[in-house]
């Protein structure tokens, strides 16, 4: 009986959260025009979630490209197909690894700090103070962070992909000795601008950016105003973002391919 009640609660809670999240998205979108008065705040957030995440994105992209190239070289050498290494590295990074890994890193690096910051603003009554001063916290706090995430993700993803290709080239050509011309010409011949770069990199990372930023600001904005509540909300940002990214990835792939 208790289990039944508990399960009902989890189900209704989850559904309620998803519904609140959707309504919150509408409120953010409604607040976006008003947040244009605080454009500089958006730039500051872009600096914080985007530019400050560059290091981790670049290093991770480099290593993902390197390990992909290394693994593929050894598998493809069984079939004598090492010339395809560049192609497969590029397609794997553009279509899946680039957007997904960037989004996961983005959720961990930027999503959590957004949640914690907004949660603490709520806990320390800064948001209440803004409302008292007739400053709309949705337009001044939430919308700039959401927009910044939306803009930063595709840019970060492009940087990640470029670094991944560079890492793949470093291992494949410089270390394992695949011919440089073969590496590039095979890649160029197979990778398609619309299919791989626009559909893979741009649309996916835009969608992931929207989802991660929405979850981060939502969890922060609705976090219980206690230290435990903020900690819990931060955890939930990472968990919910990761699940949302991977599930959305499947759906988007099915649609875009």
């Amino acid at each position: 009986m208790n289990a039944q009640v508990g399960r009902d609660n989890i189900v209704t809670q989850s559904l309620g959260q998803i519904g609140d999240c959707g309504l919150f998205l509408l409120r953010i979108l409604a607040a976006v025009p008003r947040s244009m008065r605080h454009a500089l705040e958006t730039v500051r957030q872009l600096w914080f979630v985007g530019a400050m995440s560059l290091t981790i994105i670049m290093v991770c992209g480099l290593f993902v490209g390197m390990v992909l190239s290394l693994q593929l070289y050894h598998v493809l050498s069984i079939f004598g197909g090492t010339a395809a290494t560049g192609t497969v590295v590029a397609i794997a990074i553009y279509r899946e690894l680039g957007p997904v890994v960037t989004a996961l890193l983005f959720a961990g690096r930027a999503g959590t700090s957004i949640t914690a910051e907004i949660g603490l603003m709520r806990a320390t009554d800064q948001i209440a103070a803004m409302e008292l001063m007739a400053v709309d916290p949705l337009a001044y706090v939430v919308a700039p962070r959401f927009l910044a995430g939306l803009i930063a993700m595709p840019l970060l993803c492009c940087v990640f992909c470029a670094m991944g290709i560079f890492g793949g080239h470093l291992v494949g050509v410089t270390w394992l000795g695949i011919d440089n011309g073969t590496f590039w010409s095979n890649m160029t011949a197979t990778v398609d601008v619309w299919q791989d770069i626009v559909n893979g990199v741009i649309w996916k990372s835009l969608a992931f950016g929207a989802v991660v930023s929405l979850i981060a600001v939502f969890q922060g904005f609705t976090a219980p105003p206690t230290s435990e509540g903020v900690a819990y909300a931060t955890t939930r940002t990472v968990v919910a973002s990761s699940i949302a990214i991977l599930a959305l990835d499947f759906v988007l792939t099915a649609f875009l391919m």
Partner: protein
Amino acid sequence: MSQRKSYAVGTGLFIVLGFAALAYLATQTSSVANRHQGDSYTVDAQFTNVGQLKERAPVKVAGVRIGQVQSIELEPGKPVADVKLSIDKRYASIPADSVASIFTSGLLGDQYVGIEYGHAKTFVAAGGKLALTHSSQPLEAMIGKFFGAGGVNDNIGGTYQVTANFTNIGTLSVGAPVKMAGVVIGQVAAIQADPVKLDAKVTLAIDDTFNKIPDDSSAAVFTSGLIGSQYVAIQPGGSPDNLKNGEEMILTQSAMQLEDLIGKFLVNGSPGDKPGSGSSSTPAGKH
């Protein structure tokens, strides 16, 4: 104010870096160059079968890309595909009697339209039509050609039978073609295991018109193409005497097992699997 400026500059740098990365991905690692087309003109070509040809597939002359497939549509009221080729203006001098064919790049690659120049003095105009086309060859049709389409055997009148013993016939089956110089001259009439010699005794029914085959000719079990099925090939010898009904061909070459061949290529191929003849025919028997 100075701090504000520093992050504004940093953010600007970040955005520029992101777009630079995007430009790099789009121009250096992808086929954006292939998409870029200057002025182009359209030429029609009609095919009875376009196979796997897709829109935006390349159009090539002598292997060099000169344009792309713009659209593929069924000609209204006719079972032919109307393919519009968008060709770069720089290559405006295609002779009117050129042949457009659908080729496959490599064994498993994508299909493209290849144009072989004719000798006409007039050129195909924009909106014109390439009248001579070669359609895509479905794999089934090609395999059918290897087998003589089976129907050839039905037309064979009188036959005479010779036998040949093989240590391994692979997946050869009754009804498989017997070929000489690649041409079907008969078919496999029966396959039996020889209880004394412990090998496979294959009876070949050969058309009576081919009764001048030297009796020292050899018979081999070959595979048509990479993945086709097997047939018996006869390589003529030099003996003055000819094969007669009921005689046996002494010189035979058994089927090569794909596993053996691949095993030879691969260093790590397991040599213990060599007697593949038994294992390839038994799985059906083992429930």
